[in-house]
């Protein structure tokens, strides 16, 4: 069973008296442990598709299935719980909470759900993630004291803190210089390997698309390409 399946997904936005079709019937599957890039130019529908996979937006038609479960009829509370338990988010503009420091930002999602980890276990996991993203010396700093790359590392740790099966990253390198962007993608790739977390990221940077092992290319709200790359030592 695919971890995510999109079946004839459409999304229409009202624009004054007319409507804009951002996604025009898209279908593809994402397998567990994929490191998938949703690529395409601006306005191709990347963010819209990512939002629908991330359950922050509802399709106008079609169905998004998470682990085989249809999501279109779920109530807001159920969608929020599903997001909290299954999905992690990395945003283009990092979207850290400015009044919280690095540690608190990473810990934040853990404190939202109904299920709580034992305090000590949670603290160790948070510290482990901060160390993994290389920010052990910055735990007490607030986001305005960090560089763009450091902020995105905090966002990655925050996305992983609830041990989600899927992490969605919307243009995670767009606000970073190319070297930092590559480091961030490498970090995501490492976590993808080590924790077997499925990573779905949108980008229009060809160099970053090359790192992905599954690519879905979009244009004008339609899939133009959907392929898996053969990697040395990896199965397609």
């Amino acid at each position, binding site marked *: 069973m695919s971890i995510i399946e999109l079946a004839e997904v459409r999304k229409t936005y009202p624009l004054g008296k007319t409507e804009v079709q951002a996604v025009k019937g898209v279908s593809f599957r994402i397998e567990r442990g994929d490191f998938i890039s949703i690529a395409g130019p601006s306005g191709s529908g990347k*963010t819209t598709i990512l*939002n629908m996979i*991330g359950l*922050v*937006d509802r399709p106008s038609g079609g169905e998004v299935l998470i682990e085989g479960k249809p999501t279109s009829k779920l109530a*807001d*509370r159920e969608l*929020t*719980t599903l*997001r*909290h*338990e299954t999905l*992690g*988010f990395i*945003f283009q*503009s990092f*979207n850290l*909470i*400015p*009044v*919280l420091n690095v540690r608190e930002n990473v810990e*934040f*999602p853990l*404190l*939202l*759900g109904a299920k709580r980890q034992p305090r000590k276990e949670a603290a160790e996991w948070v510290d482990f993630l901060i160390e993994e993203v290389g920010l052990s010396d910055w735990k007490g700093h607030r986001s305005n004291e960090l560089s763009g790359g450091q902020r995105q590392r905090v966002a990655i740790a*925050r996305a992983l803190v*609830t041990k989600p099966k899927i992490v969605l990253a919307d243009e995670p390198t767009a606000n970073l210089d190319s070297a930092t962007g590559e480091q961030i993608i490498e970090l995501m790739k490492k976590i993808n390997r080590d924790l077997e977390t499925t990573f779905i990221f949108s980008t229009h940077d060809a160099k970053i698309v090359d790192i992905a092992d599954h690519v879905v290319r979009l244009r004008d709200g339609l899939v133009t390409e959907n392929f898996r790359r053969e990697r040395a030592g990896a199965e397609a």
Partner: protein
Amino acid sequence: MQTARLAFRNLSRQKRRSFLLGGAIAFGVMIVTLIDGFAGAFVDNVSENFSNLLAGHVFVEGVEKSPKGRDLDIIRDDAALREAAEAAGIEAKYVSRRSALQGSLKFAGRTASLAVQGVDFAAESFLAERLALASGSLDNLPRDGIVIPEPIADKLGVETGDRLLVTTRTYSGQQNVGEFAVAAVIKDPGILGSISAYATRDYVNELLDLAPDEYQALSFYLPSLSGMDEAGDRLHAEVSSRLQTFEREAPGAEGENPILAMMRGEDEETWTGVKYRVTTLNDALAQVQQIVDVLETASLVILLVLFLIIMVGITNTFRIIMYERIREIGTMRAVGMQRGQVRGLFLWEALFLALGGAVAGLAAASLVMLGVGLIDFGLDSPLFIILKNGHMSFRLDWASVALKVAIVAFLTLAAAFLPARSAAKLDPAVALRTAV
């Protein structure tokens, strides 16, 4: 708890804005607290001052009808009244038995009108402690000695040792003339100057044509203000079982001063012998309580009006806050924050603002009360009756303060509720793509 902690920290984001909003709440709380504090002390101070003025808390007066139907003030049954007071268990700190004449003092062609209290100085030893002497002495007061206030002494141009002529009327209304020797002059008692002359009761009785064992007013000065009405009721019952009395409460006295209503009833009534009236300070001050009720209502109305204005500010500010943090709300919703938690985040912030403002308002009110309390208005101030020893005083009922703080918190939460609900209802996708 994470929501509350985050809400608390959010207050520090726009310090100036939080300060202004909290300041508006603090100002409202301060005004209301000051009114409450003033109203709280108002009754105490007025009661205390009147009890000093009237020399007691529970009073007995005797009224006799003249052949022409006039009411004459006289107490002829002291023994029965003593017995009644004992039976009623009146434990008085001081008991005073006084007569009083209204007369004109004359000296070297100058005249001054005033009331002269006939006092048993030996029994009313506390009086010597209260009177601030400017000259002379209360020791060995001669039978015709008089103690007059400074302004009267200045007006007449007299000093201690001078002798004054007094023209007055006996208790039954006959013209009478006497002579007083100025034994002492007391410092200016302010607006009470016209009723602050004292002489021996023996001599005042002589001028009033009363027997030495007769007098006009019996007062009991109780150890505290509480329980005076119960003491008055008990005394009335005991006096009634021995002597003729008026009803404790005059019929139809609702909304009117009880003593005035009682006296109106006496004018219409006829009887023979002396009939006794038992009253308390609370009867005399019934309308003071009405003033306090008005002040308390005004304080609540001011609180509500001020907070209606402040609420508009809070609602608008929280709407602005919602738009400023719209992407943050989208992010929090995306990472798993439920709608109720978003709403809670805003409401916690409003609650902290309200509580912070309330605490600051109470602190500011305390400082103002402390500062105003230090101002000496003097005993001759026109405000004398509401002051405590010449100083403005305040008394807060902490239950009422807690209620007002609860109202402030509720109104602030109500003001923040609509923006909080709007924030909670935001579509996460819309919130995330909104550029601020």
